[in-house]
C-alpha cells in the first residue's frame, strides 16, 4: 500500500501510467477502519492496479484539492485524471467491481 504525501502525490498518482485507487481515510473514522483490510487483500489480488492512501489528518491539502467532504472516499485515477469517485464502506467484491470497470 502506497502512503501518499503532499510531496509524492503528483509523481505517484498523476504521473502514473497505471490505474491508481486512492483511499482518503483517517485513524478516527470507523468505516475507514473497515476498509483497511479490504484494501490490503485487493492489493494482493489486483497486482496491476496501484493501491494508495491519503491520511486526511496529515495531508488536508490533498483532501481539499479533491474536495473531499466525507471519508472513506475513493478516487480512481487513469492517466492522471479522476475517472471515478465514491464514498462509504463496501464489501471487497463491490470495491473490486468498481475498480474493474476501469481496468
Amino acid at each position, binding site marked *: 500500500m502506497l502512503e501518499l504525501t503532499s510531496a509524492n502525490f503528483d509523481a505517484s498518482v498523476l504521473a502514473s501510467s497505471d490505474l491508481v485507487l486512492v483511499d482518503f481515510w483517517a485513524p478516527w473514522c*470507523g468505516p475507514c477502519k*473497515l476498509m483497511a483490510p479490504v484494501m490490503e487483500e485487493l492489493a494482493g489480488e489486483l497486482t496491476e492496479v496501484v493501491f494508495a492512501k491519503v491520511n486526511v489528518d496529515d495531508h488536508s491539502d490533498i483532501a481539499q484539492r479533491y*474536495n473531499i467532504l466525507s471519508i472513506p472516499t475513493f478516487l480512481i485515477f487513469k492517466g492522471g485524471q479522476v475517472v471515478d469517485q465514491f464514498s462509504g464502506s463496501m464489501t*471487497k467484491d463491490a470495491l473490486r467491481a468498481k475498480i474493474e470497470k476501469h481496468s
Partner: protein
Amino acid sequence: MPEKLIIIGSGPAGHTAAIYAARAELKPLMFEGSTPGGQLMLTTEVENWPGFPNGMMGPEMMDLFKKQSERFGTRILSENVTEVDFTASPFVVKTSTASYSSEAVIVSTGATAMWLGVPGEKEYGGRGVSACATCDGFFFKNKKIVVVGGGDSAMEESNFLTRFAETVTVIVRKDELKASKIMQERARNNPKISFVWNSEVKEIVGDGTRVSGVKIFNNKTNETTDFATDGVFVAIGHKPNTELFAGKLELDKAGYIVVRPGSTITNVEGVFAAGDVADHYYKQAITAAGTGCMAAIDAERWLASKE
C-alpha cells in the same frame, strides 16, 4: 453437507449469537455484510455498555466482539447475502458468488440510517450531505452545518459536530424533540446549537461541487425559505434491513421481522431473528446482544429437537 447455523450480520446481535453458538459447537458461519461490526462502527464513544465505566470506542468494541467470535471457531466471510430461500430444509443462503445451505439461520441484519429522499441529497452525497458525523465532521471546521432530526442520534451528532462547526442548526419536524432528557439537555445547553421548529428540508442545493444551502418548509406557516449551509447531516432514524426477507419472513408494517414474544422465533421454523432488525422499540447494543444470545440458544434447542 449443510452448515448447522448461518448467521447473517456482524453487529452486536450477530456476534453475540456467534459466541454462544460457537461455544455450543455449532461451528457457525457468519456473513459480515458491508458494515462489518454494524452500527457501532459509525459512532465514537459508547457510554452505556455495562462493565466499562469510562466508556469505550464503538469500533474498538466491535473489534473485540469479532475476536471473541473467532476465538471459539466462528468462520467469518466478508460478504453480503443477496438472496435467501427458506421454503425447504436445508435453507439456502446466497451471495453474489456462491450458494450455501444451512439447517438453521439467525437473521441479525440490523438497521440502516434513513435518508430524506429529497432532490439534491444523492447528488451531493459525500459532497456536503452525510449520515456519519464522526466520519465527516472533520471537514466542516468553522463551517455552518444543518442537522435534520429530533431524536437521540440527531442530538448526539449535533453535539459532536460543534467540536468542528461554527454553528449547528437542528431542523425539527415538530415543535418538540423526541430525544431523551439527558441528550436534549446537552444540546440545549450547547451555545453553538440552535433549533428550527416545525420544519422540513425539502431540497438540498449546491454549486455543482458542494452543498450551499437547503430549502426549509415550515409546516405551520406553509412557507418555504432558503437557508445557507455548508453541510447537511441527516439523522432521522433508521429502517430495518429486511428487503431481503420480504415475502420470506413475516414482517410488520414498518418492515421489522415479527418474532414470537419473549423469543427470537420467526414464522419460519428454524429461522431466528435478533437485534434491531426485530426491534423497533429498544434499539440498543446491549438489547441486540441480549437477543443475539437468545437466538443462539433458540437455534441450539431447535437443532437438538430435530435430532
